[in-house]
């Protein structure tokens, strides 16, 4: 061991020692090490050594798990403090934060920069593990940002990046500060030792650029503040060193993320050229990555680098190839889909990496579903996907595919053709070498043949049965596949010949060791014997209507009342039971420990599916139990019901739901081989222009199959925006759209990308409505098209530009308070153009409302919205200003966390030219959040009857819009307080007022958040409010040591936390 170990240990004795006396600790730790080394040298066997080391490890673990950092932090030795802070930044137990926080806060004022810096980093760590605990010291973060030492400032940026990722709106005011810092860094104002290869603080620059791109996203005003410094960054970074390229990459990304400025975009595009054309492979890679990012907004850029991209596609480095495919994936449209998918499949055939295979298989399936030019291609491509993806691909792919087949599209004839083609294709596959196909593919084949082989008129069911029997005999078939086969057979056995064959099979498997198989065999046996029953349960032609699920379970009412009268305990919903559990903590939680988490996870699965979806999805999933649905209609109903029942958390019946969940997990890997089959599929794939006669037919087919998509895509290049739109249309039943938004929330990196998509989408569609759309690039480079985003028509310009300050202000709770000012402003506008000014419907005019903000606009349509707080709900009012001819339009508003009800008669509406139409949506809260976001989709055709175009928009509103005062007496307050189980505590700042700070503070809360002050007793205050009408939240306040200690309680989880956030903000800002 080196000296340094001993030196370090001598210097930091108390870190590793539980001993409270520093002196003895110093001795003991050195001595301990000596002992250990001596011990090891004296040992004779490896076993003994292991034992000794393990013993040592255990004792060190014990020491480290309860570090004596508090004491070190208070040490006068700089290094001890420094090291203690480093420890705090790394391994620190959450529950010790309150103890250590004041000491760390104190260190923020330390004279030494290194201590201040480490203190800020420690706060960053605290923020990461327990954001609530450091909420009150946000102003200290600001102080750190303004620290005179650049190191401390840099450290604070980590916190800000995190905060801004979570809520950019709240930090827009800091944009100018970040810009100034970046300017100084770029301008070389930092001390020389911050340079790296004569580039000033490159990683700091990168960090700042990331922050700026988050702030400038979808925000023109904020973006304008940063144009200059971005321009300078692009200019300065001309030196030929890797690190300047790293900065440039970040800069280009930023330029393409924020509100576009044509001049900057041009420069950034040129930069990308330098990357992609570089002979250095690392730069090429980064160039491709940058290109992948920017083509989502400007696919023309890809054209510029066409040749390079093609070169990269054949590059010897698989990573470069992979990145190129990613790029191609982003620019796929209906015209190039066949070529791109072909390239992806080629890559898949050679890929040995499972992760890459899974990823690309998913992408091919997505593209195929989106842009398939015809049925044949679609089925062939999906065949390749299933063969190559093997059994490791995401289960959504086969499920989605079967769902698509079963639900069909607009035209029955097309559905029939698609299904028929699938059947023919699968028959020929089975006649080949089915043993080479992956299990999942076989299962898909079984289902399709079972459901649709009747469509092929020249095909005898007995032939299909014969092919299926072959699968049963195959050694490689898993028993899961075999159950799929048996179920398919059950559906098919309605002809004489088939019946005899089926009965033979049933005979064999009715004695199988596998229970599921035995069950299927029994079903097969019984149904094939009784043709009457068979035709009732599984009518020939598969015209079985999806069963409706009675989600209210009304048919159980009799049963329930009977049970109740017999003395059974009444049903309690899950959350109530959990509350009771948490209240009676004396009980052992052990038995529930396992079952509760499972129940919630399965809840989420059922929750995501609408009742109508249940029946289809159950038919598709490979799980054995689901096939009992087909087996007999009575079990079908019960099974469906069980699931809904499961949502309420009735644990005894949880099992079926869990099983379904398990099926979605990919089964163990199988090699993605099946080359031969895949190749044979490929050779059958026709080239898109091979048959000009068919072309028209194919076009027709595609347009009806993939409704409206191809017509749009043939005009413009920017396809990337369409997926969402199309998904919205076709997958409405599956609620895919809402799950997409869910994903966006969950993953910040994804959301940034998809938000860009949204931006792009708006621009694209605006461009789309232009009669001559020569290039989508216009949107970005043409100054005119830039203004399109703000409303191209003059009439609208009045609306948007009339009072830019008002329009661009982000909506926040504070604005809400000011909202009373807006009517006069509206009056001003009205005088300018009365017929096109949005104004509130008469029935809502009496309530307070937020200011009207623009949502999105196209050439002739302009969407704006505000929300109105009525007594028992919040109404989102969307104004559609139509400045041109009559139009047909349809709006859809969705939210993960809010229940949205449309207050209107028909989904499609006619809006007359030059008028304003108003839509109202009543909103209620599903689960509390600090801010809610609504995502909307407007599809319109102008003039009415023309092809549809779409726009996406989003709207944010704070929780406070839903808060209403709750008038209760002190007695009622007392009894409610005890009954509520979700709580949170926090110290807030008191409003500084000489005489009665408590009253002043509570009045402020009352005014800003409309909380009802129940009573003020001495230094204590009781406050009550409710989330709309029915979800109360109580707040108990006490003045303590110059601060306001608040305690919030509510029966609604998360409500106290969210409300606390708003209280804090309301009190921070005067």
């Amino acid at each position, binding site marked *: 061991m080196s*000296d340094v170990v001993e030196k370090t240990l001598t210097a930091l004795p108390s870190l590793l020692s539980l001993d409270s006396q520093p002196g003895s600790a110093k001795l003991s730790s050195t001595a301990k090490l000596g002992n250990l080394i001596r011990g090891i040298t004296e040992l004779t066997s490896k076993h003994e050594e292991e034992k000794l080391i393990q013993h040592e490890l255990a004792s060190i673990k014990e020491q480290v798990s309860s570090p004596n950092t508090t004491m070190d932090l208070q040490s006068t030795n700089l290094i001890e403090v420094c090291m203690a802070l480093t420890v705090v930044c790394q391994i620190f137990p959450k529950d010790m934060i309150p103890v250590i926080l004041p000491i760390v806060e104190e260190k923020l004022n330390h004279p030494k920069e290194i201590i201040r810096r480490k203190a800020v980093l420690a706060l960053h760590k605290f923020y990461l593990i327990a954001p609530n605990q450091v909420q009150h010291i946000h102003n200290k973060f600001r102080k750190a940002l303004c620290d005179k030492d650049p190191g401390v400032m840099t450290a604070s940026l980590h916190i800000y990046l995190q905060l801004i990722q979570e809520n950019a709106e709240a930090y827009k005011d800091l944009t100018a500060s970040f810009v100034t810092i970046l300017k100084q860094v770029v301008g070389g104002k930092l001390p020389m*030792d911050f340079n*790296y290869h004569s580039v000033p603080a490159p990683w700091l620059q*990168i960090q700042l650029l990331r922050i700026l791109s988050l702030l400038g996203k979808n925000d023109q005003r904020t973006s304008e503040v940063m144009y200059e410094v971005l321009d300078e960054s692009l200019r300065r970074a001309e030196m030929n060193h*890797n*690190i300047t390229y*790293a900065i440039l990459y970040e800069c280009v990304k930023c330029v393409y993320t924020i509100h576009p400025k044509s001049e900057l975009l041009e420069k950034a595009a040129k930069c990308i050229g330098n990357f992609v054309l570089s002979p250095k492979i690392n730069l090429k890679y*980064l160039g491709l990555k940058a290109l992948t990012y920017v083509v989502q907004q400007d696919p023309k850029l890809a054209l510029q680098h066409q040749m390079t991209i093609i070169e990269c596609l054949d590059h010897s480095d698989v990573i470069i190839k992979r990145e190129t495919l990613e790029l191609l994936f982003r620019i796929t449209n209906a015209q190039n889909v066949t070529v791109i998918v072909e390239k992806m499949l080629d890559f898949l055939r050679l890929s040995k990496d499972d992760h890459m295979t899974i990823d690309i298989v998913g992408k091919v399936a997505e593209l195929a579903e989106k842009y398939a030019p015809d049925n044949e291609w679609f089925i062939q491509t999906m065949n390749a996907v299933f063969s190559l993806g093997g059994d490791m691909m995401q289960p959504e792919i086969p499920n989605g595919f079967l769902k698509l087949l079963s639900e069909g599209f607009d035209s029955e004839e097309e559905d029939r053709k698609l299904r028929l083609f699938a059947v023919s294709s699968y028959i020929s596959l089975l006649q080949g070498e089915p043993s080479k196909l992956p299990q999942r593919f076989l299962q898909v084949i079984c289902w399709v043949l079972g459901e649709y082989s009747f469509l092929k008129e020249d095909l005898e069911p007995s032939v299909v049965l014969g092919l299926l029997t072959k699968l049963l005999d195959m050694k490689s078939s898993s028993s899961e596949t075999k159950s799929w086969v048996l179920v398919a057979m059950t559906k098919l056995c309605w002809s004489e010949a088939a019946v005899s064959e089926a009965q033979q099979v049933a005979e064999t498997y009715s004695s199988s060791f596998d229970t599921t198989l035995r069950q299927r065999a029994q079903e097969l046996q019984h149904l094939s014997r009784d043709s009457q029953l068979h035709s009732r349960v599984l009518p020939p032609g598969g015209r079985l209507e999806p069963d409706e699920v009675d989600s209210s379970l009304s048919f159980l009412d009799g049963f329930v009342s009977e049970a109740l009268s017999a003395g059974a305990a009444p049903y309690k919903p899950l959350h109530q039971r959990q509350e009771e559990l948490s209240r009676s903590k004396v009980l052992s939680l052990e038995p529930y420990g396992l079952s509760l988490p499972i129940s919630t996870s399965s809840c989420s699965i059922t929750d995501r599916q609408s009742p109508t979806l249940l029946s289809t999805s159950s038919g598709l999933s490979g799980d054995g139990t689901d096939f009992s649905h087909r087996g007999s209609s009575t079990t079908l109903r019960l099974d469906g019901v069980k699931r809904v029942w499961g949502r309420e958390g009735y644990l005894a019946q949880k099992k079926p739901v869990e099983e379904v969940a398990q099926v979605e997990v990919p089964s163990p890997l199988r090699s993605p081989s099946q080359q031969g089959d895949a190749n044979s599929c490929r050779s059958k794939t026709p080239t898109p222009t091979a048959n000009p006669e068919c072309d028209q037919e194919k076009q027709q087919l595609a347009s009806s199959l993939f409704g409206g998509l191809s017509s749009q895509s043939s005009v413009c290049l920017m396809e990337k925006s369409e997926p969402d739109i199309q998904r919205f249309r076709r997958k409405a039943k599956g609620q895919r759209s809402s799950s997409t938004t869910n994903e966006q929330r969950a993953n910040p*990196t994804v959301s940034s990308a998809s938000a860009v998509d949204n931006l792009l989408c708006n621009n694209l569609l605006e461009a789309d409505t232009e009669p001559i759309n020569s290039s989508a690039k216009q949107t970005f480079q043409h100054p005119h098209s830039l203004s399109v985003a703000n409303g191209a028509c003059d009439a609208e310009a009045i609306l948007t530009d009339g009072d830019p300050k008002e329009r661009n202000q982000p909506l926040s709770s504070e604005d809400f308070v000011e909202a009373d000012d807006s009517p006069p402003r509206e009056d001003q506008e009205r005088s300018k153009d009365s017929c096109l000014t949005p104004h509130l419907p008469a029935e809502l005019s009496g309530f307070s409302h937020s200011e009207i903000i623009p949502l999105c606009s196209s050439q002739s349509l302009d969407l704006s919205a505000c929300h109105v707080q009525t007594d028992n709900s919040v109404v989102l009012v969307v104004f559609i200003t139509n400045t041109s001819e009559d139009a047909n339009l349809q709006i859809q508003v969705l939210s993960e966390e809010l229940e949205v009800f449309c207050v209107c008669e028909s989904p499609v509406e006619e809006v007359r030219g030059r008028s304003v139409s108003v839509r109202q949506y009543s909103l209620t809260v599903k689960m509390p959040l600090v801010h809610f976001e609504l995502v909307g989709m407007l599809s319109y055709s102008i003039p009415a009857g023309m092809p549809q175009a779409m726009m996406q928009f989003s709207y944010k509103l704070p929780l406070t819009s839903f808060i209403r005062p709750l008038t209760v007496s002190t007695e009622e307050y007392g009894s409610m307080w005890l009954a509520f189980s979700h709580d949170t505590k926090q110290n807030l700042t008191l409003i500084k007022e000489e005489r009665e700070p408590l009253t002043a503070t509570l009045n402020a809360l009352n005014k800003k958040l409309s909380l009802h002050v129940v009573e003020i007793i001495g230094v204590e205050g009781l406050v009550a409010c409710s989330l709309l009408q029915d979800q109360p939240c109580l707040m108990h306040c006490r003045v303590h040591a110059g601060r306001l200690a608040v305690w919030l309680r509510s029966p609604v989880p998360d409500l106290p936390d969210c409300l606390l956030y708003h209280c804090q903000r309301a009190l921070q800002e005067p």
Partner: protein
Amino acid sequence: MIKFVLMVNQQGQTRLSRYYESVELSRRAALEADAVRCCLSRKKDQCSFVEFKDFKLVYRQYAALIIVVGVSDGENELSIYELIHNFVEVLDKHFSRVIMFNLDSIHIILDEMIQNGHIVETNKNRILAPLTAINKMAEG
């Protein structure tokens, strides 16, 4: 985000590993072996960034020593590539000779540079300040 930093020799033996995301102790050896194999299998003229499972590896070789950094997908690979070099320059500044006998110092240096998966210091003087102070204190 940085997920881990590995220092390995050409035989694939781990000399130092630092994780910024919790990975079970038992799974680390396999992960490290896979990552190193993945990097070693690549040719000199191929790019220094590799896809690995659902994230990426950035690696750089110095004589017999290979430094591998696991990063999340959104990370700027080139900046990490240069961070490795900065790290090596710091090591070079502090140690005159073989560094592999001073693992504890390397850990201290790494802790100054990266915390919780974020790059927290890149100024060489500042990175070395605590270590120098500790050494001085031990001597004095």
